[in-house]
């Protein structure tokens, strides 16, 4: 009978499973950046160097702010995980072109420090940091945040300069949603709307005024579908968000006898595309169950439509996402899965 031997080699002991899919947070964040490349290219195409300076300022300052915070908090510096870069990038894409760089850096400060690090860093934040930064900028600098510049590609076109332009600046423009408000008044008065609003095609390809990254719908769709394909984003959030907005605006427009392009316009205009694919789907601030995500997305759609249709502010995506972020813990608490076989749940 052999005695029980002492282990002859040093081996790792751990509880199963002993293998891993290889999914990591940095890889997912890199995929988000890859998914945003078409939108960045579109921003460069439409707004040229003013786009690049704002994007660079936001991304670099976001990374630096996160590193400083982590240093001060005595935590390991994890800027390599690219989450700060993603926040900076998303913030930049939600800012108007020709936005002052100094204010963009301030936005990044709010996004990273107030939006994320004060809660404890990645995974602990309540609000989508990029949208929180944007909301604070909008409240603090409403003038700069609502000064829209026409894309360089549209400047030569006489048609594009609408009569609705409120400011004296020659290259300033109304966003399509502002034009829509004017069109609504005309429809209600029974008048024809012809040149007052940009065409659907221009709206689709992004040849209109708006934030840097939100105008070019094909670029955002490509990026969003890439994220869904890679499994980082649950299709339910963008699908139910967009469907709810289309449904409510469709019914609203139909009841008031608006043109049939009204719901399409709401889908394509403003921050809805970037918001539904990139902002609302933020892992940290969206619910973890599939049913919860559907409720969350429908809530987003209702709030966005309400703000857009009945609010004094024409754009509702940013605020509706921030509001639904607040509801997420509640959804997670009450919308629980029932275990396979039906165990009792809280």
């Amino acid at each position, binding site marked *: 009978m052999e005695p029980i031997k002492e282990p002859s080699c040093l081996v790792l002991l751990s*509880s199963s499973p002993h293998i891993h899919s290889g999914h990591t947070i940095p890889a997912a964040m890199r995929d988000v950046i890859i998914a945003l490349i078409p939108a960045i290219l579109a921003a460069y195409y439409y707004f040229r160097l003013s786009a690049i300076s704002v994007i660079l300022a936001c991304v670099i300052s976001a990374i630096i702010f996160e590193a400083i915070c982590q240093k001060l908090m005595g935590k390991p510096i994890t800027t390599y995980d690219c989450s700060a870069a993603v926040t900076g990038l998303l913030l930049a894409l939600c800012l108007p072109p020709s936005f002052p760089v100094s204010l963009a850096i301030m936005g990044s400060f709010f996004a990273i420090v107030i939006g994320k690090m004060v809660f404890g860093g990645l995974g602990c934040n309540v609000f989508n940091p990029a949208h929180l930064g944007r909301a604070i900028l909008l409240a603090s600098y409403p003038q700069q945040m609502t000064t829209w510049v026409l894309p360089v590609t549209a400047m030569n076109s006489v048609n594009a300069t609408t009569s609705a332009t409120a400011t004296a600046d020659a290259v300033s423009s109304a966003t399509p949603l502002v034009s829509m408000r004017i069109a609504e008044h005309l429809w209600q008065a029974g008048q024809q709307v012809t040149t007052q609003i940009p065409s659907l095609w221009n709206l689709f390809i992004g040849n209109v005024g708006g934030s840097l990254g939100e105008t070019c719908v094909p670029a955002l769709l490509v990026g969003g579908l890439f994220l869904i394909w890679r499994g980082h984003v*649950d299709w339910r959030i963008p699908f139910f968000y967009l469907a709810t907005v289309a449904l409510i605006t469709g019914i609203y427009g139909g009841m008031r006898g608006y043109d049939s392009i009204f719901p399409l316009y709401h889908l394509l205009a403003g921050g809805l595309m970037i918001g539904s694919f990139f902002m609302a789907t933020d892992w940290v601030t969206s619910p973890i169950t*599939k049913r919860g995500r559907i409720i969350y997305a429908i809530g987003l759609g209702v709030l966005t439509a309400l703000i857009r249709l009945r609010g004094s502010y024409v754009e509702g995506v940013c605020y509706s996402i921030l509001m639904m972020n607040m509801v997420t813990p509640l959804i997670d608490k009450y919308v629980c899965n029932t275990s*396979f076989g039906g165990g009792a749940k*809280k």
Partner: protein
Amino acid sequence: MSSPKATFLDGIHIPPNKSLTEGQAILKCPAPDFVYLPLSMHIGAPAQPVVKLGDKVKMGQVIATAGGFVSSSIHASISGMVTGFQKRYLPNGMMSNCIVIKNDGLDTLSEDIKPREESEITPDLIRKQLQEKGIVGMGGATFPTHVKYAPPKDCPAIDTIILNGIECEPYVTSDHRVLLEYPLEIIQGLKYFMLASGAKKGVIAIEDNKPDAIALLTNLVEKEPNIEVLVCAEKYPQGSEKQLVYASTGRTIPDRGLPAAVGVVVDNVATAVATSRAIKENMPLIERVVTISGNAVNKPGNYLVRLGTLYSHVVEKAADGYKGDLARIISGGPMMGFAVNSLDFPIIKGSGAVLLFNHESGFAHVPVEETCVRCGHCVDVCPMFLEPTVIVQDVKKRNWDDAANASIHACIECGSCAFQCPAHIPLVQYIRMGKQFIGGKGDGGHNPFYVIKK
């Protein structure tokens, strides 16, 4: 076979990594000089030894009888002399008393082992023999098989027997080889199970990554009106009992319930082979097929090993030893197996595989846990529809009531959540810990650990 592949909801896709051994025919591992037969190589009460120190035993002779209803007999896997009783650790961390037998090299078969007449075989005899011949679940859980054929009174009549030939664990191919090399005994075993339970239907479930086994078995059951081969999609954990029952019959086993609650019994294909031998030839369970694989093994393969053989003997004598410094030794598959610290463990009835990895493999690292980013992947993949990250937060905060309310007891510990987690949180490991604290009852009320603060 043309019907859509049966499967369950959620779950994950894992690279199967079976190519190392799936083409290797079963080879006999030479019998060792000593075997160490743990009295607790099954779930339930330990077996009671019936031999004394110095007793001569023959191969197949009973050396310990069942220590209760949920228990099973143990038989000598070699002939020789009982030279001692030794306490040894099993791979799962439990300690068990082992009967040690010194091999006389003769393999003298016990006299009572002779083929049984067909006419003698009755349902009662099968149920009795299952316990007496030491038949337990050989898929890894080692649940005594005869208990499954004595379902509680309140359960519906058993109408379907499912043979589990899924083998969804990466690297492990022992069941695959059993399907290919002992198909007739599998079908015979299934017929005995159907006879014992009165079930009218038998299903042999095979994952679609084993087309050769599917073709062979489909061909063989063509003439059997009550038996069919079910092709299941390749997905983990397809071989889990609840998921397999759902995939095969569409029935959902209720929470804390047994398959018998929906009229089904699930047995591993290797168990069916052992049953066929036990009933037909009166041969007790004394050997099993074990996959020896991993990048460190010189000759990966599937070996027929006597129970009680030490891992080290199988690796050296059958698999030609290993190369490099070992980084990880896994008893079982990489998803649910146990990492062990040496090769000094005996092969037991549930040992399907021993995997050896050296420092050149991905098994040499344990990733560092990061903060949960609430991506919800663990929720998306959980085949039990639990919310692993929520449960783990409860466990970390020692909120045992909340963890119990979140159905921590329903976790089958398949590891899908931890496999998928981008933050490398050892989710299932925390859940396992939480289950132990709560005491397995799910109420968390009376456990002495319940009040321990960090």
